[in-house]
């Protein structure tokens, strides 16, 4: 162990209290679809009063006026803003996940997969369903979209802890299941196999496992940090609800069920699973619409439809 001075600290996109007090729009409930250069607002922070009424907030709204500061501080802020703009750092915002899903779904089963399996979606089946819901909202998604200039925030890599990926220095890529053509919105569907792949301890693939897709979605969310070239990205994360309708006492006693009963049981599980996945997508779409984060729906709620 050594004492080693740090030559340069990673820049932080969060404003200081003084900067937020001077410019309350920095603390708006959710970030707007930021125009090019919005990284400047996030990184350098401009200046106004704490929790004062939010300024405009739409894309076309002019930036709030900078109150008088001492000249040196203002020059510093301006220089920082210019530097930040030059770096074109944009946050990646992961949409919220339906709380009900986080609390109830995505765990599916404990024990033997062969005896009491949940409904497990295939990737293509789930992606079809997600695309349908987005299409209903007027958003076309294309398969296999790449987000470049991606800076990871993975908390489980020693190397990155020592040398954190600073905003503006991201060079990674993330290939998403779906995304819009303009590169502003991406979708990732987390399946049971994703949960296994993302586990810290690799375990052999066996019939008995206990995936935890809500935890998995949180881990993926933590990996999203920023991108170095615009436009800002919004991510929709959805996971397999892994619906498992428990057998009744009578059916349990009569296991194995006859073919028809098994089919009926599986059909009921699939129907419920589809409903639950659609609910996750609709919840995200509602949020994205309200926040002006749906491509082609950048106006305030109610004006886009």
């Amino acid at each position, binding site marked *: 162990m050594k004492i080693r001075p*740090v030559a340069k600290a990673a820049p932080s996109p969060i404003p200081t209290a003084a900067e937020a007090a001077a410019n309350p729009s920095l603390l708006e409930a959710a970030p707007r679809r930021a125009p090019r250069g919005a990284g400047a607002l996030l990184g350098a922070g401009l200046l106004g009063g704490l929790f004062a009424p939010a300024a405009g907030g739409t894309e076309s709204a002019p930036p709030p006026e900078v109150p008088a500061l001492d000249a040196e501080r203002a020059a510093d802020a301006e220089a920082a803003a210019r530097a930040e703009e030059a770096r074109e750092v944009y946050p990646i915002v992961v949409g919220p996940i339906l709380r009900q899903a986080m609390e109830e779904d995505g765990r599916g089963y404990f024990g033997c997969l062969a005896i009491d399996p949940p409904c497990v979606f295939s990737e293509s089946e789930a992606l079809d369903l997600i695309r349908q819901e987005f299409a209903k909202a007027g958003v076309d998604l294309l398969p296999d979209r790449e987000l470049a200039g991606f800076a990871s925030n993975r908390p489980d890599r020693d190397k990155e802890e020592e040398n954190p990926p600073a905003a503006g220095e991201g060079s990674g890529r993330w290939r998403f299941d779906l995304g819009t053509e303009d590169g502003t919105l991406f979708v990732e569907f987390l399946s049971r196999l994703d949960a296994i792949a993302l586990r810290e301890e690799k375990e052999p693939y066996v019939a008995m496992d206990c995936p935890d897709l809500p935890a998995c979605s949180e881990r993926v*969310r933590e990996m999203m940090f920023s991108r170095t070239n615009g436009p800002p990205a919004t991510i929709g994360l959805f996971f397999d609800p892994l619906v498992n309708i428990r057998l009744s006492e009578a059916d349990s006693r009569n296991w194995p069920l006859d073919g028809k009963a098994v089919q009926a049981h599986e059909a009921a599980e699939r129907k419920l699973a589809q409903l639950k996945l659609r609910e996750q997508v609709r919840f995200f779409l509602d949020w994205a619409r309200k926040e002006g984060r749906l491509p082609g729906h950048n106006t305030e709620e109610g004006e886009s439809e």
Partner: protein
Amino acid sequence: MHVTLHLTERCNLACRYCYQRHGAGDMPFETAAAAADRIATGRNPGLIFFGGEPLLRKDLIFALADRCEAREPGRFHYKVTTNGTLLDEAFLAEAGRRRIAVALSCDGVREAHDACRVDAAGAGTWDRVEPALRLLLAHQPYAPVMMTVRPETAARFAESVLWLRDRGVRYLIPSLDHAAPWTDAAFRTLKRQYRRLARAWLDDHRRGRKFWFAAFDKRIASRIHPELGCSCRLGRRQVSVAPDGTLYPCVQFVGHPEWAIGSVADGIDEAKREAIFLRNEAPKAACAGCALEGRCHNRCGCMNFQTTGGLETVPPILCEHERFLQPLCDRLAATLYAERNELFLRQHYNPAFPVLSILEDFA
């Protein structure tokens, strides 16, 4: 100004990492009263009851608080830091009546706690402290818990933090034992534990669950409120009073006469206090040019003294710890800021949050 009153040198435990010099000395009432009188007219006076184990002197705690209240009700604030083994219903009822805040030392789950917090016979004290924690939180739901982390307990760090959180602790202040023999392997273990805690901390914020984890929250606060700084302002914000009335700049200097800065009877030797203060504030040569300066605890005089015997050098474990933890905390903050997480924004940008939060909790 606060004074930390070392009410007694006695302790009913023999914690393996304790830095206090235990003896048989007790502070006379007159000494404690004179110390209180010295700060009574200052701004925001506070008495911190310390030891040894201060609850061996419950009588003195109450007598002193009663005296101060009789003089001017509500002027002083009081805090006691205890190992919990002598906490009981009667004490907490009386403490509540006098607004004495209680902070508990607890290292978490049994395996972590009993590794170091033992009695004179070497027996673990978790069985006595765990019920005390429940009792304390029933009386003082916002009571802070102080946790010490050592190499041998590092592997239980996350488990211990989450256990305390799940018992209802709202304010947890973990500290590394910087004087412990930290190895690279032990520190790697600690880092893994922090990462696990980072995930839980993010999850708590996303679920709106309030839990102040000083290791993260204080470092994030130092980014958002750089004006607060990290310096303890050695000897200026608080002074420690030994049982015999000698004054010291902080708790770990008590019993080292070469660091004395006066006495209750004669007052503070300002020249000596200022010399120690300036010596502590001077830039550390080993830290020259470090970008973390200002947010690092390298000016904790107590810690530097305990680990290096002086004020000019910092222990390497501190440097490793800060180099790891500050970027992690910054990324946690950046993540929640990008999401405009409501709890995070209120906690760190709304100065009224502590009060509003309590009102909200009881609504």
